[in-house]
């Protein structure tokens, strides 16, 4: 975008919004919004502390485990649903139901079933991420060029070879699209899980800051989380663009 003949760098609108935040904070309208500069100072002081690093590593573990489970289960299940009519009929209603279900309401049930620890958070993360991954892998398989499948069969591919040499790669652009959305949902899942269970990770941290009215700390951690989620999504979007060159020519 250009303004008065000057070319503005990307995301320069963020500067404007940062200014608005700073001004509102300085006006002292509410204790809830401290000035951005104060938040940033707090951010640098918080980021190296033991509780923060502990929260970060716990969150990363739960997030990583949840995403890994969603990908490792979700992609094969989605491909199978795309290939096999019977499996599709059996599972599709459930996948669609869980995709749109308010999963937050399930978290208390999970807590009862799996305890107040990491296990419940990992399962919550998986439940948030897996359905869209399944649906996208399924959609990817459904649009595969039939003659590519016939090619594999006619040159003697067994079902397993067809699965990992043809179906997976042919559906990869859709699969990666699903993984990207799934990962974004997993970020929500891991934070919501931690907030509701609230004795581990950032959930515990948020609870601590909010109860003690440490708003600058609260915002600082929130900014870190937003930045992390955004980076993860951008990295996946980059990967997706790298394989999309062949999406059109299947």
């Amino acid at each position: 975008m250009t303004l008065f003949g000057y070319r503005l760098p990307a995301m320069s609108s963020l500067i404007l919004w940062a200014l608005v935040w700073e001004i509102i904070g300085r006006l002292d309208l509410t204790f809830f919004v401290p000035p951005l500069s104060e938040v940033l100072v707090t951010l640098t002081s918080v980021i190296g502390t033991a509780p923060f690093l502990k929260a970060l590593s716990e969150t990363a573990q739960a997030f990583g485990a949840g995403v890994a489970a969603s990908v490792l289960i979700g992609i094969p299940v989605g491909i199978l649903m795309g290939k096999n009519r019977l499996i599709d009929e059996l599972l599709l209603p459930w996948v669609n139901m869980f995709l749109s279900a308010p999963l937050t309401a399930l978290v208390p049930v999970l807590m009862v079933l799996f305890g107040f620890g990491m296990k419940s958070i990992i399962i919550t993360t998986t439940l948030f991420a897996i359905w869209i991954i399944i649906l996208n892998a399924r959609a990817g398989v459904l649009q595969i060029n039939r003659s590519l499948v016939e090619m594999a069969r006619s040159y003697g591919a067994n079902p397993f070879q067809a699965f990992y040499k043809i179906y997976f790669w042919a559906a990869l652009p859709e699969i990666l699209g699903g993984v990207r959305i799934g990962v974004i949902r997993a970020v929500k899942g891991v934070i919501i899980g931690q907030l509701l269970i609230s004795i581990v990770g950032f959930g515990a941290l948020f609870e601590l800051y909010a109860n003690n009215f440490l708003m600058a700390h609260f915002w600082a951690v929130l900014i870190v989380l937003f930045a992390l989620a955004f980076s993860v999504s951008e990295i996946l979007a980059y990967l997706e663009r790298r394989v999309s060159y062949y999406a059109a020519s299947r």
Partner: protein
Amino acid sequence: MVMPQIKEAVNVPDMPQSDNAVVARGISKTYGEVEALRDLSLEFPRGQLTSLLGPSGCGKTTLLKIIAGLLKPNSGEIEVNGKPVKGPGPDRAFVFQDFALMPWANVLRNVAFGLELRGVATSEREAIAEKYIAEVGLAGFEKSYPHQLSGGMRQRVGLARALSVDADVLLMDEPFSAVDEQTRRKFQEDLLNLVQHENKTFIFVTHSIEEAVYVSDQIAILLPRPSRVSEIIRPTDLRHKNVDNIRRDPEYLDIVDSIWASLRSYVE
């Protein structure tokens, strides 16, 4: 069952009786209510090129896919080298109308894919693939991806893939219909060379009368709904003539005309 009339376009009395690489016996195939093939029988002589020619919807691709083992007939059986076909096998290789190349793999891997599926070691299969890539005139493009190639070049990749598995029978499903006219003519010439020099049996589906007469040792004319072989034509004499002159040979023109005469009533 109506026996197809066999019409020798030219009589060559002392032509050696070649054995058949592929035999179709009483093949019937229905898709739901639609009868695609009815009691179709046909023999494919070894080392020759047989065209399946007919208007669209006459089931010629269906027959080819049944021979490939990709489709199961409702009744009847296919024999390849005397053994009944149960499914796809290493004795047959397929060339697809839309090339069916893996867009995520380069030319080398695409050509070597048939060997890869058979578990041939990487260095060995790549050596074989390189040989056939050069043979179809694509040397230097080993590392290219399909989307970087023209339609004609992509079909050469498909052809190299079929050749590299060294099958006895090559099944070609309208292989030149998706390439431009000039490339198509070059392909037809190359195909004649291939039939002469590779000791393989070719089964070639086409809807172009000229193409069929130009390249075939035997043309099976299929008529639609339900499909059966209405006529078999062997332009035997043309095969001994100079490739460059075939298209203005009076015999070539006569055969093209007579095929058109028998097909025209089936074209809507």
